[in-house]
């Protein structure tokens, strides 16, 4: 027995120098990547309860999610925003002891999919080591995905960063930097938010994982850093955007049409969003953007990043700049080179005619004699599930997709009649659904507030609703609607007949 033990120890000694020689090769051994010296994770338990956009007066059944949070300096915990969307209650749990405390969401950015939590008990995170950010991840690096076993033991799975590129995040607004990692990771009960770590520093947070192809997309540390820096300010502003659409200039015919004679470079501006920085700075459709912040842009729309090499120029706007910054943009207009200064700003979901997402907020609605009116939103269309683009009412999908073309003036909502609750005042209207309201009692309707105001002024005792689609007009008797309101509310169990705020 004794001899046996000795020989084991000898092997250990023999191996050690090998490991030391291997280190400079920039291939961190599993020991350094996977095993943290100290624990830097907490469990996060969230009870979420999304609003029901089809029955806007109620919430859906509550459900719980378990996830991991990365402990950051100043007693904060980082998770994905998806996790805390429509949350009712957030709770932190120490993995090693099972001790729990409530937590508040300090900031949530649903576009970058990041949220910052703070325990109600300030001492709760004592003993955990805050994670620093690793901002230098490049293609070829190995990152470890940290998960916890049911026992609280830490499990690390290593993966290889194969691509760093701009992709769309779940909110589907603009492009963000993304690490793509090839990793064979198991689902565990806390797989919702998985931190990715490089040398015991936080390199990213799981965005999506496809177990079939074993490809993981991660929100990278530079985006996290941007979020955290913004979160330090009094008012979180969000990631900036410029507000123009573009197209590569690979086609020599297109370049020549746009007046470019020299070397191929830049992107062709195809559209300008109204009231956005590009519009305000005077960028025009047909301009070629050849430089952003003095970085040259090639005909594919890429600049050369010191860390990543060629990557799409939108990274310069979302990750490298902040709302309020001025971004010099070099353009070619009819062959002449000029510079525009874009005062970058964040475009809030509320600034769209048809908001791209509504989270943590109750949907507005107005019930009038059984006719249910709502403001059109993508959140409503998403109620049709993953295939909403095909399954949701196609006319509304079209309006959402081409909203800046259809409502170029902006600064309004689209009010729609979504369904009819059969009642005495809606006899004969039961089959009406998904109609776009244009006028009520002769007044143009650009929001649900407009509608609430307009219905108060009936025409000779009638409320006349005009719609874009057939039947084009719907009438109700104002007195009857008023008289039957209470019965309708009781009959269908509506807590309220309207929500305008």
């Amino acid at each position, binding site marked *: 027995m004794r001899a046996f033990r000795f020989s084991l120890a000898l092997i250990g000694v023999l191996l050690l120098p090998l490991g030391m020689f291997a280190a400079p090769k920039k291939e961190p051994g599993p020991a350094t990547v996977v095993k943290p010296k100290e624990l830097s994770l907490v469990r996060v338990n969230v009870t979420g309860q999304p609003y029901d956009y089809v029955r806007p007066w109620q919430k859906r059944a509550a459900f719980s999610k378990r996830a991991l949070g990365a402990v950051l300096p100043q007693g904060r915990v980082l998770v994905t925003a998806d996790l805390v969307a429509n949350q009712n209650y957030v709770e932190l749990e120490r993995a090693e002891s099972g001790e729990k405390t409530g937590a508040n969401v300090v900031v949530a950015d649903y576009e970058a999919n990041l949220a910052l939590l703070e325990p109600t008990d300030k001492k709760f995170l004592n003993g955990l080591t805050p994670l620093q950010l690793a901002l230098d991840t490049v293609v070829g690096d190995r990152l470890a995905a940290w998960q916890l076993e049911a026992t609280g033991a830490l499990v690390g799975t290593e993966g290889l960063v194969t691509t760093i590129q701009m992709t769309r995040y779940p909110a589907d607004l603009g492009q963000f930097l993304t690490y793509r990692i090839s990793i064979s990771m198991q689902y565990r009960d806390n797989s919702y938010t998985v931190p990715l770590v490089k040398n015991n520093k936080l390199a990213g947070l799981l965005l999506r994982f496809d177990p079939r192809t074993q490809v993981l997309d991660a929100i990278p540390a530079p985006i996290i850093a941007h979020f955290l820096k913004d979160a330090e300010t009094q008012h979180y502003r969000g990631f900036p955007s410029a507000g123009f659409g573009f197209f590569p200039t690979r086609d020599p015919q297109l370049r020549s049409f746009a007046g470019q004679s020299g070397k191929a470079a830049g992107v062709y501006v195809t559209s300008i969003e109204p009231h956005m920085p590009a519009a305000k700075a005077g960028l025009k459709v047909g301009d070629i953007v050849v430089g952003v912040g003095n970085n040259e842009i090639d005909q594919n729309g890429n600049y050369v990043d010191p860390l990543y090499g060629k990557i799409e120029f939108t990274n310069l706007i979302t990750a490298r700049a902040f709302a309020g910054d001025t971004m010099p943009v070099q353009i070619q207009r009819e062959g002449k080179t000029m510079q525009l200064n874009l005062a970058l700003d964040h475009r809030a979901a509320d600034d769209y005619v048809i908001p791209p997402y509504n989270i943590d907020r109750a949907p507005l609605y107005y019930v009038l004699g059984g006719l249910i009116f709502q403001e059109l939103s993508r959140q409503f269309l998403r109620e049709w599930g993953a295939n909403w683009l095909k399954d949701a009412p196609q006319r509304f999908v079209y309006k959402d997709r081409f909203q800046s073309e259809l409502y170029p003036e902006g600064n309004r909502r689209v009010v729609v009649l979504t369904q009819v609750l059969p009642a005495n005042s809606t006899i004969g209207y039961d089959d009406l659904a998904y109609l776009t309201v244009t006028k009520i009692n002769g007044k143009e309707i650009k929001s649900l507030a407009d509608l609430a105001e307009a219905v108060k002024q009936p025409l000779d005792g009638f409320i006349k609703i005009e719609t874009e689609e057939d*039947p084009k007009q719907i009438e109700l008797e104002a007195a009857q609607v008023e008289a039957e309101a209470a019965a309708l509310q009781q009959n269908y169990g509506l807590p309220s007949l309207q929500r305008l705020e």
Partner: protein
Amino acid sequence: MKRFAFLLSALLYLNGGEIQAQQRTVPPPPGATSVATPTPAAPQTLIQAPAVATRPNGKIQKSLVRITATEVEPDYRAPWNSGAIQRGIGAGFVIEGNRIMTNAHVVSNSRYLTVERDGDPNKYPATVLFVAHDCDLALLKVASPNFFKNMTPLTFGGIPELEAVVSAYGYPLGGERMSVTTGIVSRIDFQPYTHSSIDQHLAIQISAQINPGNSGGPVMQNAKVVGVAFQGYSGDVAQGVAYMIPTPVIQRFLSDIKDGHYDKYVDLGLTYTKLQNPAQRHFLGLKDDDRGVLVGTVIAAGPSAKSVQSGDVLLSIDDHPIASDATVELEGESVEMPEVVERKFKGDVVKIELLRDKKPVTVSLELGSVWPYAYLAHTYDVRPRYVVYGGLLFQPLTLDLVDAYQPTDIRIRHYFDYFVTEQIYLEHPEVIVLTNILPDPTNSYLAPYRASIVDEINGQKIRTLTDLAKAFSETPDRFVVRMIGDGPPLVLDPKEVESARERIKTRYNVVSEQNLEDQPARPTPVDQNKT
């Protein structure tokens, strides 16, 4: 009358060898269960059928015809190709004047037709005399005088009563020789006719089993034809639901062709809704007499455009009062309001009494067809229209195109769905889509433009395929093609395109670079228009 409510489940043609299904639904609310829930099938047991003592309809073999059609289905994805060749079997029957009646879908796109009769070993070549795709009927003739010897022409009856027993004759699957099935009249109602897909006419639902191969066969009662079997649901959607074309539709077809030309159904060219809401009725100044329907959209290209307005209330049509549920009483029966128009012909005048701003107005409309509907209907016997320029394939947006490409592009789907009701045809009588690109050095960078709709070429609005062909026939320094919506212009150098022409034609076997006219797919028989 054209149909805007979409089919809730799959309706199939009953032409042997060819099954075409159509499925479009209004989106149900999320989470709703499907409307067409298949019912559990009853256990199958063989029941001995009671022996039929007599044959109430006489010897139908003396009138029944088996039709073999060789068809060439146009290829909308490679429209210069002649298309796939297929063969189908259908039924037909002899009527007066040595003519054979069958369904339009039995002989659509046919290149060669033969007919056979009972007890005669010969196959006789036949030709199409008239075809009406909007009501799925056709008449054939056979050159050989021998064919009609000893054949008995069938005569037509009226609309059979509900629950009356009828027999269907034809050549459905299951054997070679004539088959008879019986059933009762289950329902008499307006139904979509799936052959054109846009038309809706009176149809009679029968419980007699009819299957692929029954198409065009007579449905008989008391030795008279009371219908032509034409469509039904496939077994996985609904059982025992088959439809026949009733005699009013058949008689209308026979009358229409009397002048040697089929003029198609006529239409009012408007949409309307029922007026069953009391408040709405009061608002519009209507009496409590359950009359009137509300006009929604007046199609600018239709007969009502000049005399009817959105918001008018239609009170009567040809002095038949219109009930608030859009029915009229015709010969003692309550029928849908369009039935009055259904029985009319091109150029006929219809009188409409209506209420506009609470004042009575009487208008007369000269009926005609509404051309934009043609883009929403299946077409047959014509070659697809297209233009190939620089390897770019441009085609007008039609139902056949949508079926061939199943476009997912939201804008294309919107332009198709709302072509008539949003009057898109006023600005774009044809919606020209860049449907496909035949890759070549001259169009290397143009793939992202696929599935976009052409708006302008060099500042010239493109309203039709002919406009597009004309624009491309000029030789400017360059073509700047603007597509609808936000997007870069598509820029082409005519010189480069010219130099690539032969190369593209050869490489992709593009036999012809354009087809601008609705050319008949087969040579018109010289005697087609003579009766």
